[in-house]
């Protein structure tokens, strides 16, 4: 047993069950008599429903029930938590009623004894649609012209918002130089490996409903689904079994989740729905979806003086949980890693006949980082300066923290220059620039991209969050000395079963194998907020850490009582409470060995603890004594557990530098990575292997966004990237080896000093990749390219072929 787990590359305790195929996802849970649900979904982007004929479907052997919008009118609307001033919120029913608003909009639910009968019956339901004019163009929607999606609103503008500090007009009026660029952030599909899935079981005797759902927010879902279907919240249990990735797409309450619970209550049978990949691309939230103009005012020496971003956000037809809030996060992060005295964002959120956009890994912050970093590259190009040096010039110094931004944030801690220096050193930046000169002279097309990002994590203070930003933890030591940790976070790939156990094992001086972390069951775990916004370790991990401290306070009192010493004379060291030396003379002497090795007590009975004459007690021995309750100090509750709800006072602000080096094939336009260097600073690191894993995954998704991925709707609102044949997710062969390193600047916001790293890769990497490609193509006059940048685009630039671009 190492003396300390924190900071070590401890292998994930989750992995054996995953690798061996022994883990249980929603679809692995088989309850006898389960009925299966399949959905009829609209194939029109916008249409009136004249009638729905379900008779042929009901004749299919095995079909038990078919529900349409009017059957489920009592179910409350799908919730939206974004409370922005003047926000228009459409009434989002779980099934379409009189109109459909996007391709994939659920129109009817078929329930059958097996999945195949349900699916076949879907094809027999005849919906008489009358197609309506479709809105896909966000600029037309933002202009307030064209057909209106939600008629009662009068236009397609969901909200307008302006934010920022400083005199932006003065900054531009006095600017020595300016750059301006229109930038697209195409819609992305999060593509969790496991699609969504729900299993609902109603117990009519107990009047209790259990929902197994592939979600990131079991408790918030319990609250919302209870309200939607009218079951008391304490009669609803939400369990998240293994969850195969979420990336924000499962930070939501979807129509299907409430509907399945309701159907089980109607039929008194378990009902299951597992999303197909086609449904996943159509009807699970999309990410990004912005187009905006970024403008920067700066001095001739490269000092930034003002930044303005006018952006249209493509919200889709309805609001999901956080849809309208995501672009506001973009606004918060527009200062990037720089000192910019005046910043303004003007957001226009618009309805379109598409699936809702919402949180996808980064959730509004990749958009901010991307436009700011692209703008910095444009500033560098305008000044004919090195992009890294323009960035360095505008960094706040490491002694200027907390650093107030013109977006209203106070960055907690940082040393941006250290991360840039380290990344440049690893990459051999100066030498790379020399190599680039040489390569260009030889006719090669090579580019270097630099991104110095800062992001906002550990969401967050409750005042800034729609449903509370705290997190909860209970740490409990069982009579046998085993440690149980209950966390309100809901890990789904992040590895907190391991990292939280590391924290607890260190604090209690026990083996990590004696610690079990339980999450994702609302009947077992106290209320929690969930896992998203790179918050689990910084907020949830802190709750665990403080709960352990509370538990240790009690353990110390019990230890002092048993050791017959004053509590102030008892200290905890090396996994034992013992009387400090100064007080040792007054303490009884005797064996310091445990009376029995933990875990080897007599079978069938708890051992009698022999505490007489001891100088040291392990936490396990104290736990046993606490449960037997024969030797407790007066007025001490039996048992040994503590619960803590941690409310952070601020966000945390991780940062770093990513450097991408690419070479482009002149013949094919193919883009090849020569190097990829990432130096990330996520505060104190609990488990470097988990951090590396998060960074790897994030960069891969950034490569996807930069070079491959785009959800495409045609002008009629038809989704034409409806399968993984058409929606191009990067594979192993598209990804280079990453050279990762770190700087470590602890956060003052929490006692662990941690910041968060779950989204750093998707935030920091895209500008480095695009910057490298644009830099490579600079000799062809390229200053900016919109993502995804495909070999086709690059080839046309090289060959001066402007057709179809």
């Amino acid at each position, binding site marked *: 047993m190492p003396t300390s787990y924190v900071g070590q590359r401890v292998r994930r305790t989750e992995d054996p069950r995953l690798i061996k195929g022994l883990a249980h996802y929603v679809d692995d849970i088989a309850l006898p008599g389960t009925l299966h649900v399949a959905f009829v979904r609209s*194939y*029109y*982007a916008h249409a009136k429903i004249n009638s729905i004929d379900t008779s042929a479907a009901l004749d299919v052997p095995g079909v038990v029930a078919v529900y349409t919008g009017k059957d489920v009118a009592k179910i409350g609307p799908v919730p939206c938590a974004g409370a922005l001033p003047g926000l228009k919120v459409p009434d989002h029913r779980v099934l379409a009623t009189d109109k459909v608003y996007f*391709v994939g909009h659920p129109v009817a639910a078929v329930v059958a004894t097996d999945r195949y009968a349900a699916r076949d019956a*879907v*094809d*027999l339901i005849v919906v008489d*649609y009358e197609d309506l004019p479709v809105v896909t163009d966000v600029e037309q929607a933002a202009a307030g012209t064209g057909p209106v999606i939600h008629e009662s609103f009068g236009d397609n503008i969901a909200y307008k918002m302006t934010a920022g500090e400083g005199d932006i007009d003065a900054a531009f009026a006095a600017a020595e130089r300016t750059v301006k660029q229109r930038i697209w952030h195409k819609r992305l599909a999060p593509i969790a490996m496991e699609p969504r899935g729900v299993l609902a079981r109603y117990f009519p005797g107990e009047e209790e409903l259990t929902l197994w759902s592939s979600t990131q927010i079991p408790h918030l879902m319990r609250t919302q689904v209870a309200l939607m279907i009218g079951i008391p919240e304490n009669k609803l249990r939400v369990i998240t079994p293994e969850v195969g990735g979420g990336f924000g797409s499962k930070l939501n309450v979807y129509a299907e989740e409430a509907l399945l619970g309701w159907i089980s209550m109607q039929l008194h049978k378990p009902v299951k729905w597992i999303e197909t990949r*086609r449904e996943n*691309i*159509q009807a699970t939230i999309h990410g990004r979806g912005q187009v905006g103009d970024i403008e920067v005012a700066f001095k001739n020496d490269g000092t930034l003086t003002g930044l303005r971003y006018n952006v249209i956000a493509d919200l889709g037809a309805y609001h999901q949980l956080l849809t309208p809030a995501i672009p506001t996060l973009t606004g918060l992060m527009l200062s990037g890693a720089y000192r910019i005295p005046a910043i303004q964002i003007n957001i226009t959120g618009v309805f379109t006949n598409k699936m809702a956009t919402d949180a996808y890994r980064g959730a509004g912050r990749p958009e901010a980082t991307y436009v700011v970093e692209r703008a910095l590259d444009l500033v560098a190009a305008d000044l004919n300066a090195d992009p890294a040096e323009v960035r360095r010039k505008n960094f706040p110094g490491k002694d200027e923290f907390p650093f107030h931004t013109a977006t209203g944030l106070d960055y907690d801690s940082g040393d941006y220059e250290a991360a840039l220096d380290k990344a440049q050193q690893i990459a051999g930046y100066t030498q790379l620039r020399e190599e680039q000169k040489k390569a260009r002279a030889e006719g090669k097309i090579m580019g270097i991209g630099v991104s110095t990002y800062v992001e906002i994590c550990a969401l967050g203070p409750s005042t800034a969050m729609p449903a509370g930003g705290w997190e909860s933890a209970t740490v409990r030591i069982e009579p046998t000395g085993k440690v149980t940790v209950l966390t309100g976070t809901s890990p789904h790939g992040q590895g907190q079963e391991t990292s939280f156990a590391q924290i607890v094992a260190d604090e209690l001086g026990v083996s990590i194998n004696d610690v079990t972390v339980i999450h994702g069951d609302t009947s077992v775990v106290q209320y929690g907020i969930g896992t998203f916004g790179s918050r689990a370790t910084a907020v949830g991990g802190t709750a665990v850490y403080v709960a352990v401290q509370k538990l240790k306070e009690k353990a110390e009192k019990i230890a002092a009582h048993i050791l017959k010493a004053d509590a102030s004379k008892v200290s905890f060291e090396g996994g034992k409470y013992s009387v400090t030396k100064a007080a040792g003379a007054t303490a009884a002497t005797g064996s310091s060995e445990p009376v029995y090795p933990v875990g080897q007590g007599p079978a069938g009975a708890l051992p009698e603890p022999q505490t007489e004459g001891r100088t040291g007690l392990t936490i396990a021995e104290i736990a046993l004594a606490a449960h037997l309750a024969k030797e407790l100090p007066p007025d001490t509750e039996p048992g040994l557990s503590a619960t803590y709800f941690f409310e952070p006072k601020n966000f945390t602000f991780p940062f770093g530098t990513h450097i991408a080096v690419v070479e482009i*094939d002149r013949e*094919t336009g*193919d*883009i*090849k*990575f020569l190097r990829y260097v990432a130096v990330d600073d996520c505060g104190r690191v609990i488990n470097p292997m988990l951090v590396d894993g998060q960074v790897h995954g994030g960069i891969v998704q950034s490569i996807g966004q930069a070079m*491959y991925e*785009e959800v*495409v709707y*045609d*002008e*009629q609102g*038809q*989704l*034409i*990237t*409806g*399968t993984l*044949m*058409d929606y*191009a997710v990067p594979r192993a*062969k*598209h*990804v*280079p080896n990453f050279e990762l390193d770190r700087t470590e600047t602890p956060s003052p916001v929490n006692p662990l000093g941690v910041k968060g790293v779950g989204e750093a890769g998707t935030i920091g990497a895209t500008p480095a990749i695009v910057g490298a490609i644009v830099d490579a193509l600079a000799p062809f006059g390229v200053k900016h390219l919109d993502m*995804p940048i*495909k*070999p*086709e685009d690059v080839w046309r630039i090289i060959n001066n072929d402007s057709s*179809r671009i």
Partner: protein
Amino acid sequence: MQPTVEVSFAALQARSLRSQDGKLVKLDGTHEFEATRERVYQSLVNAEVLQRCIPGCERLERTGENTFSATIRTSVGSIKGVFDGNVRLEDLREPEHFRIVVEGKGAPGFLKGSGDLDLEQDGAITRVKYAGDVQVGGTIASVGQRMIQGTAKMMATQFFTCLGAAAKPEAGEPPP
């Protein structure tokens, strides 16, 4: 990193489909018949011939002077399904021109299309030039879009080949 041919191809297709002014598929071509223009024209507007020659057409009934209702069973790639819909002939200028408008709906989605057909006599040959576009929605659009162009082209070829046979004069008939 290896070249990403399959990925780029998919993206390229999506882009080319998208860039065509909202119409998913454009269809045009020329087919030659060894028959008179009048005869080809009559075949093209003949319900019995159309039912025989439209690939997958299970039913075609005249519902008005120039309107038909039809059932067509078809597949695009792996997506199979039955469409019920209407066919309307417009702008009839026998024997040189007419316009055909098709609308169908079915479990795999919907299709809407229209096309202009122009007939030219060139000696013993009648040349039919056709140009139109088809808009599809639903599963066919999201799953089968990469196959639509090819399928549509194939169906057009099958249709005109069948029609050519139908328009050919029977033995003993006067030469075209």
